[in-house]
């Protein structure tokens, strides 16, 4: 099962990837920006997308909207992982169809548990 991680911070991206990869049977693919995510999306069948909100090209909300409006991807669950504590962005993210909204910092166990739940693993 493939999980797409969209995050422009290299260190955070690697930390997220390492955490998610500890789950057996999961393969992580990373995109460094919203644009790269748009390019990667059609190439794989993703079981889950994890995205940041604040990115230099398109913002995470726009990516959620794109995914949720597109018949190819709309059933893919999507997590927002962000520093954005702002209520408006959080509400909008969830309204657009994000499944979970995690605010950094959070415990690795929380992320692992959520990923497992949505991927219906153990």
């Amino acid at each position, binding site marked *: 099962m493939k999980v797409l991680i969209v995050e422009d911070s290299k260190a955070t991206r690697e930390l997220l990837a390492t955490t998610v990869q500890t789950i057996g049977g999961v393969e992580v693919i990373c995109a460094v920006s919203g644009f790269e995510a748009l390019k990667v999306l059609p190439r794989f069948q993703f079981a889950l997308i994890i995205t940041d909100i604040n990115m230099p090209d398109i913002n995470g909300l726009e990516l959620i*909207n794109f995914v949720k409006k597109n018949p190819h991807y709309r059933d893919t669950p999507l997590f927002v992982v962000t520093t954005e504590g702002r209520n408006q962005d959080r509400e909008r993210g969830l309204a657009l169809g994000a499944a979970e909204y995690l605010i950094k910092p959070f415990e690795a166990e929380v992320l692992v548990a959520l990923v497992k739940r949505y991927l219906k693993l153990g």
Partner: protein
Amino acid sequence: MARPRALSEFIAEANEILEALGRDLLVLDERRGQEADPDLLNGVFRAAHSLKGLSGMFGQDSIARLAHQTEDLLDGLRLGKVALDDALLDALIETLDLFNALLAEAAEEREGPAQEVAIAQADRLQRLLGPAVASAADPLDTLGLDPQMRAVFTEYEEHRLRENVKRGVALYRVRAVFSLADFDQGLAALNAKLKPLGEVISTLPSSQPGDESTIAFDLVFGSAKEQGELEAAVEEQKGLVTLMTPAATARPRPAPLANDREVSGPQLRALDAPRTPETSLRSLTQTVRVDIGRLDGLMNAVGELLLIKSNIQQLAEGARQAAAGSAPLPKLWGQELFKESRALERKLDELQKGILEVRMVPLGQVFDKLSRLVRRIVRESGKEIDFDLAGGDVELDKLIVEELSDPLMHLLRNAIDHGVESPEARVKAGKPRRAVVRLKARQQGNHVVLEVGDDGAGMNEERIREVAIERNVVTVAQAEGLERRELLNLVFIPGFSTRASVSELSGRGVGLDVVKTNLARLSGIIDIDSRRGQGTTFTLTLPLTLAIIRALVVEVSGRTWAVPLNSVMEIVQVTTPELRSIEKKEVFSLRGQTVPFVRLSRVFGLPETKLEKHQVVIVGLAQARVGLAVDQLLGQQDIVTKPLGGRLRSVPGVAGATDLGNRRTVLVLDVAAVIEGLLRPRSAS
């Protein structure tokens, strides 16, 4: 969710963020009083935001907390809730310095003084932000925007939209379809066309065209231009322009002002500004970013070397068979081998040059940091000073650039604090009120020359002479014989400068011995020139790189030595009768200047060769000049110095070992140590 081994990754990325933040703040600092570019403010905000997220993930709570407060303030700034005034900009610049201090502590995994300062600074930022203002009726509500489109705007994008509406410009939607493979280039081209005509507020990927190979984007664009003009501009990209809301006829409202000017006033600033602990400007990472083109060049060179290797293998095989008697040696064998060895030499040169280039970074990296600090020190000093900076594009070895920042800062601080007079004193002396402090770099052959100068009061030579005698740095007799330049150079001798002498000598000499030592470590030379009433200039000469150096190969008592060529000034011949003796030390005269004569054989306790005519290598390190007597000059060669291990490591006078080819290992002379060893007994007397 911190992993200890990820610390260095965290430091590297945080460092990059802070560097970018520093560059943006510098631009804002330079454009004080002008309206700030929204992109720039957003960039600064993004930096604080990324830092908050990053440090939070890595359990760096002090950095995260301060970044959080900084982010809030910057968010208020980019959303127009707070005005960018001098007090706020000063606070931001100090916060950046504090981040650097916190990061340095984090890198050493210790809790230091910066942590406490950070708490005070966070409070201060909060006061600058002030209480939140209740927002009036939202102009966006009356626009009749498609709610689906509005749903994907972040708060910031909404703010930009609002600002455009307030200015009374029209909002357009520009739709363009690109191929999925290279839409980013297409978008960049479209943005470049639109940017001069208005503001691209948001870029929305559209899910509408269903096919696999293309993607459509909607750009929300605010512009005072007519639709026709926009259509013409984006024709090449096949952009489709639709008007979303027409330009308003209402007069644009002025931007909201800071809501709490009393609190953010400069009067309060001096009192409540926490002091940032001084930290080194050296960056915390040991990485160099390399242009991919340069790496490709190196890869090509390696490929060609492999080709040469296989040619040589064939030639070797031919020679082996000839020796075994199974085949005659090909006629042109010698010629071929010669040709290949020439090709090998050329390619190795290319490879060497390429690798040196990879290590090179522009001085601008450290100039950015310096110029920020200089502005701060100038503000604190209350003097009126222009900072004249040139040569940021000159490239130097990364390690040298890193090591240079502290000595340069030291010299600049001295120039500002002590070199430059107060505006009143300058006017009285008939000089312009505003002083100039210069930092200039230029490349000169294999060296980079840096000049740190001011047009201040200059040094008092007579006072230097008196202080030097008082502190037993020189004897009265020696002091009499010193020339102007030698006299000025006394300020570099350890023990010359003390706190007491600071004000008496316009502060020069404060820690200058440390500057000198740091430069000597980089095989650098420092010189000083000062004219009373006109100012002081320090000239620093540094080699381009330390990795591969050219060396003079010499023979002393039958042993071969390598002397780094960058410290060699010239080579002269001196006959025994020309030698004189001063205080039981041999000296000779070089164009009227007395230079110590050092027999290398004696330094290393080797048997002496009796010679009438000595080959003397004049070496210079910082301001010192010494003549090293050797038996024979063997030539020049590029060498890579390898450190000596074990007990040999601490042999004074030996910098390391190198291989000269022919499988012979020779020792590399540590010119600095030889000179220091020579000077030490004298300054102790």
